[in-house]
Each structure stands twice: as structure tokens, then as C-alpha cells.
């Protein structure tokens, strides 16, 4: 970026969100380990606020909204400024955004511990915090569009399209799904009932995953992969087609979470069709990523960042094949409600999302603090630990899911059920123990990551002459 000195950019905010992300990542994973242990040893349900039912939502919200959103805000603020070549137009608003964000997430965690839970998945926060989330989203959007309007670069690069689509879509999803009537400050009821509530919720639930765990992560991928490898994205045309097809098709597919429920059958069938279609634009980005490295695959050995991006997009590719297949009625009848789905989700979050955010931070943090990364060796250790941890974790859950699905369906020759429910559960405990161990390995990898970044920013700045 010749001609613009980094001092003009607001990188304090990037750093603030990046370290917020790290903080919520560690908290969310500790809670995750706690509930993973509870799954085979209920003795850890020590008090009401440490019981599985309350903790599971602290885990999902802490990582999805705490770690995920903070990572997205950090990288978006960075990408926006670099790609438009203008500093943030409202730096003090961004600063307030950072404070409000951490306040809302902290209060969110406390309120979930206390049992203030609307039970709508990934929208569990009660209404005052929903208002907080909407306000902080607007604060973010003002800077996004402010930067874009004032930009000095005529064309908006792919990453910016994904950031725009996320900004618009999350706002619509969040507001529509969280329309509720307050009873008290801490309790409300949704305005939708029964089947409609289920349909609205999974339209939200599926797309919040899409527009937090896919769309902005693709924005990072399209920006940081070329930056850290020095190779341009293989095909601009492919990225255009993939973008529009992805954001169009995503919104039709929520009902594949409601297969074989009382939801009208046509909505389920439409969801299956669009889920299968989604493989195309998803793989558009996968192919674009792989072809970007064409002729330069030696970077997988020589460039530690290439590994993160390529393995990350590989898990994205697997995820987007597995997802639509799980949506098919016959397979869904077998897999739904089992641990298979838990394995599926965690390949996306522990593989794709965390690998891409990690690599983006590794690229970004030394540049904004004008230092070198503290240790590439530690970054490699981090990579291998989270790779092995994640693979062991997810494969264990897939096997557990297949076993449980088969046991639920098994019948004796006379047509009666072969196993009572408790047998199907207790037979999974060995898998749950292994899953916990895999989680510990993964967590150690994340601690290495955090240590590496903390040590990086504690070094003395060495201004880069280049």
C-alpha cells in the first residue's frame, strides 16, 4: 500500500477486537470442556448455573457471538481500511462499539448463567441485550458504509462484497427472529407460535451460521490468502458467480433443520433442493482457493500461513458437502438429533472458522503493531495441535452419531425395539471421553496461539522501511 502511511489508519480498534476475540475464545472453550466432561460425568453439574442446560448456551453464544463476531469486527475494520485506502471515518464510534460489544457479551454470558434464556438457538439472549446487539450492529454498519462511501479505491474487492452482505443480512435476521413481547426486564415471549416460530427460528439459525461462520470468513479468505501468499485469486469471474449464488440460495435452506417435523412438507422439500444447489457456490470458493496456489504448492511447506488457509478451505469444502447430504430426508431421518450433527458443526467452527481467523490474525497483528510474529515455530505447533484436536474430535462424534442412529432404529425380529433409550446413551460414554481429550489438545493449541500473539505485541516495534 504505497503512498499511505499506516499511522493514518485506525489500528487500535483492530487490536482491541482481536484481543477481545482471543479472550472470548478461551472462555468459550473452557466452558466447552466443562460441558464435554458433564456429558459422561454429571457430577460436574455442581450448581444450577453450572448445569449443562445453562452452560451449553454460554458455550455457543460465547464462541459464536463473542469470539466469532469479535474476530469478524477486527478483520473487517482492517480489511475495510486497507481496501478503501481511507481511515475509519468515525474512530470514536468504533471505540464505543468495542466497549459496548464487550459489555453486551459479558452481560450476555452472565444472564445465560442466570437462566435468562429465550431458548431460540443462537438467539438465546433476552430482549434488553437484543437491543444492545442491534445498537452495536448499527454502530458497526455506520463505519462500514462510511468507509465505503469515502473510499479512494474505485472498485470494491470481493472481500468488501461479503462484508456488505453480512452487514445487511445479519441485521434483518436478528431483528425478525427476535421480535418479542416483554413480560419483565428479564423475560419475554416471541411473537411467533408453534410451527411458525420453528420456521422463523431455523431460517435465522441456519443463516446466522451462514452469515457469521461463512460469509465474513470468506471475506477474510479472499483478502488474506492473496496477501499472505503473494498470489492473486485465481478467477475473479468465479468469485462473482459464487458470491451472488451463495447469498441467494442460503436463505431458502433453513428448513433442512426441521426435516420430518410438522413443518409443511413443501418448505422442507424446497430447503433440500436449495441445499444441494448450495454445493456449487460453496465449492466455487474452494476451487478458487486451490487454484490460487496452482504452481506454488511448495508454499504449503515454506509458508506457515498457506497451511492454515488451505486446510481451512478444505474443511469448508467438506462441511458444505456434508451439510446438504445430511439434509436429504433419508439420511436426515438417521442422523438428525444424534452426535453426528455435533461433529458436523465442530468441523466448521474448529476447522474452517478458527483456522482462517487464526491465520488472519497472524498476518494482521504483526503489521498493525509494526513487529514480526513472535514465533513461527509456535504458530506451526498451534496449527498441528488444533488440526489433530479437531479431527479427533469430529471423527469421534461422527462415529458416535452413526452408532446412536443405528441403535435408535434397531429392532428385534418380532418388530420391537432392540435398545431402550438409556442403553443408546451410555454406549456413547467412551466416545465422550475421547472427545473431551481431543478438546484438551485443541485447547492447548489455542493457548499456544494466544501466547504467540501476546508475545508479538509485547515486542518493541521495528518500523518496516519497505
Amino acid at each position, binding site marked *: 500500500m504505497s503512498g499511505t502511511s499506516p499511522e493514518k489508519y485506525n489500528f487500535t480498534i483492530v487490536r482491541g477486537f482481536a484481543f477481545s476475540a482471543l479472550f472470548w475464545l478461551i472462555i468459550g472453550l473452557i466452558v466447552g470442556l466443562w460441558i464435554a466432561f*458433564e*456429558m*459422561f460425568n*454429571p457430577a460436574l*453439574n455442581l450448581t*444450577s448455573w453450572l448445569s449443562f*442446560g*445453562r452452560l451449553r*448456551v454460554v458455550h455457543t453464544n460465547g464462541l459464536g457471538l463473542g469470539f466469532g463476531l469479535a474476530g469478524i469486527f477486527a478483520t473487517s475494520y482492517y480489511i475495510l481500511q486497507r481496501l478503501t485506502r481511507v481511515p475509519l471515518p468515525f474512530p470514536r464510534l468504533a471505540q464505543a462499539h468495542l466497549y459496548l460489544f464487550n459489555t453486551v457479551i459479558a452481560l450476555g454470558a452472565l444472564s445465560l448463567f442466570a437462566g*435468562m*434464556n*429465550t*431458548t431460540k*438457538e443462537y438467539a438465546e439472549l433476552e430482549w434488553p441485550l437484543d437491543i444492545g446487539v442491534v445498537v452495536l450492529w448499527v454502530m458497526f454498519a455506520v463505519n462500514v*458504509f462510511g468507509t*465505503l*462511501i469515502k473510499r479512494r479505491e*474505485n*472498485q470494491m474487492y470481493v472481500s468488501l*462484497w461479503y462484508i*456488505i*452482505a453480512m*452487514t*445487511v*443480512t445479519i441485521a434483518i435476521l436478528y431483528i425478525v427472529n427476535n421480535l418479542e413481547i416483554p*413480560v*419483565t426486564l428479564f*423475560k419475554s*415471549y*416471541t*411473537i*411467533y*407460535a*408453534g*410451527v411458525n416460530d*420453528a*420456521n422463523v427460528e431455523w*431460517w435465522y439459525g441456519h443463516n446466522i451460521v451462514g452469515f457469521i461462520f461463512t460469509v465474513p470468513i470468506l471475506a477474510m479468505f479472499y483478502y488474506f490468502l492473496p496477501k499472505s501468499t503473494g498470489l492473486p485469486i485465481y478467477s475473479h469471474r468465479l468469485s462473482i458467480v459464487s458470491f451472488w449464488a451463495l*447469498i*441467494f*440460495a442460503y*436463505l*431458502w435452506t433453513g*428448513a433442512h*433443520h426441521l426435516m*420430518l*417435523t*410438522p*413443518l409443511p412438507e413443501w*418448505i422442507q422439500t424446497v430447503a433440500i433442493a436449495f441445499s444441494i444447489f448450495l454445493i456449487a457456490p460453496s465449492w466455487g470458493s474452494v476451487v478458487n482457493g486451490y487454484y490460487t496456489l496452482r504452481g506454488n504448492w511448495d508454499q504449503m511447506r515454506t509458508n506457515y500461513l498457506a497451511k492454515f488457509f488451505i486446510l481451512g478451505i478444505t474443511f469448508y469444502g467438506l462441511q458444505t458437502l456434508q451439510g446438504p447430504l445430511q439434509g436429504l430426508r433419508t439420511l436426515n*431421518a438417521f442422523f438428525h*438429533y444424534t452426535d453426528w450433527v*455435533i461433529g458436523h458443526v465442530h468441523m466448521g467452527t474448529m476447522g474452517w472458522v478458527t483456522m482462517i481467523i487464526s491465520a488472519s490474525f497472524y498476518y494482521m497483528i504483526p503489521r498493525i503493531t509494526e513487529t514480526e510474529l513472535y514465533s513461527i515455530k509456535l504458530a506451526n505447533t498451534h496449527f498441528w495441535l488444533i488440526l489433530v484436536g479437531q479431527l479427533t474430535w469430529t471423527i469421534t462424534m461422527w462415529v458416535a452419531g452413526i452408532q446412536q442412529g443405528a441403535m*435408535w*432404529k434397531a*429392532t428385534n425380529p418380532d418388530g*420391537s*425395539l432392540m435398545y431402550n433409550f*438409556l442403553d443408546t*446413551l451410555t454406549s456413547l460414554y467412551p466416545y465422550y471421553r475421547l472427545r473431551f481429550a481431543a478438546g484438551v489438545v485443541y485447547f492447548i493449541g489455542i493457548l499456544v496461539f494466544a501466547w504467540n500473539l501476546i508475545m508479538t505485541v509485547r515486542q518493541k516495534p521495528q518500523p518496516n522501511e519497505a
Partner: protein
Amino acid sequence: MGITSKPVVFAVLSAVVILIGTIVTVFVPLFMPSTQPVSTFVKPYTAVEQEGRDIYMREGCNNCHTQTVRPLRTEVLRYGEYSKAEEFAYDRPFLWGSRRTGPDLNRIGGKYPDSWHYKHMQSPQGMFEKSNMPPYGWLAKNRLDTTYSYKKTSILGYGYSKNDVRQQISQYKETVTNIAYPSKESRDQVTPQELRKELTEMDAIIAYLQKLGRDVKKLEATK
């Protein structure tokens, strides 16, 4: 070139693109009769059952228990008649869940006596040694807060008057505190002395569990 140099147009176009699927599969169905069928057999929750449902939500029971039986042979064998849309007409929010760490509960009502639930909630491991369900005995140590019961049922549109709500609460209190209550012994075992003449959170959640699927059983009986 084109829209990639017009951020506002780009944002508006993105919104239109994502709204197409949303309108067809979510907004339009909101107003279709097939998503909101009613049945004279399905009655709203009483004030006490609703309080129990709110405790079920507070404790996040939906994280491990589903409430929808799918029309699959082994599932109907295991749980009972598959779930129908009209059963959920009063459910705000729906509690279908997404993972079965524990069994489905949509047909749990009437399956076991109240005494079974008092014992099981107090100590799931006492009943099933290897169960991983958290114990909920402490719910019996909390007096049921009915301050907002009327407000809740009126927001939910159950059509009860203040007096109806008061009556439902005192009636249920009368049922569980009566010496003739069939589950008296187990209730007394889990409920502290000073709350035995009161309604507890445990009483309410059990009342809720006993309601699940009962209307449908009545409906099936008429067929």
C-alpha cells in the same frame, strides 16, 4: 464498472437477493393456514403449567430433550404418536430442540405418575445409575413465583381472567398439598418441610411435563 463501485446500490441489491428466499419460505408461510392449524382438542397451558414451561426454558432442558416425534416406525414405537402441527398452537416459543441427549418428551404426559418425576428430578442417577442428566432436586427448594402468571398468560393470549389464573394456581396447590395426593410421599421426600404447603418450582415443571402430549392422546382416543 457496475455495482462494485456503488456500495449503497450493492447493499440494496444484496438485501433484495436475500429477501427472495426469505419471503417465499418464511414470510408467506406466516400467513398460511397450514402453519397454524387449530384443534378443539388442544388446550392452552394452565397458569401453573406455563410457569413450569418457563422453568423448563430457564434450565435449558431443550438443549438435551426434543419435543417432536417424527413419523418414523421406530420413533413412533419408542415415543408414541408422531407430532402434529396443531399441538404447538400455543407454544411461544416452540421447544422442538435439535439434539436428543435425553429422550423426546412430546408424549411424556401421563406416561409416568407424578411420584416418578419427583424421584427422577431429585436424582436421575438414583433411578438410572448411568444417566448423565443433571439433578434438579433444588427446584423443590424454590417457592413458585406467580407474580407474573396473569401477565404471562394474557400476553400469550390464553384468554384467562385474573380470577381464572388465581383459581388455577390455588386449585393445583390444593391438588399437590392434599393428603390424598397419590404422589404425596415422593413429593414430601424432595420438598422441604416449610414448602410442603406451598407450590414449588418442582411442582410446576412436573405439571408442565404431565401436560405434554395429553391433548393428542384424547384426540387419538376419539378416532
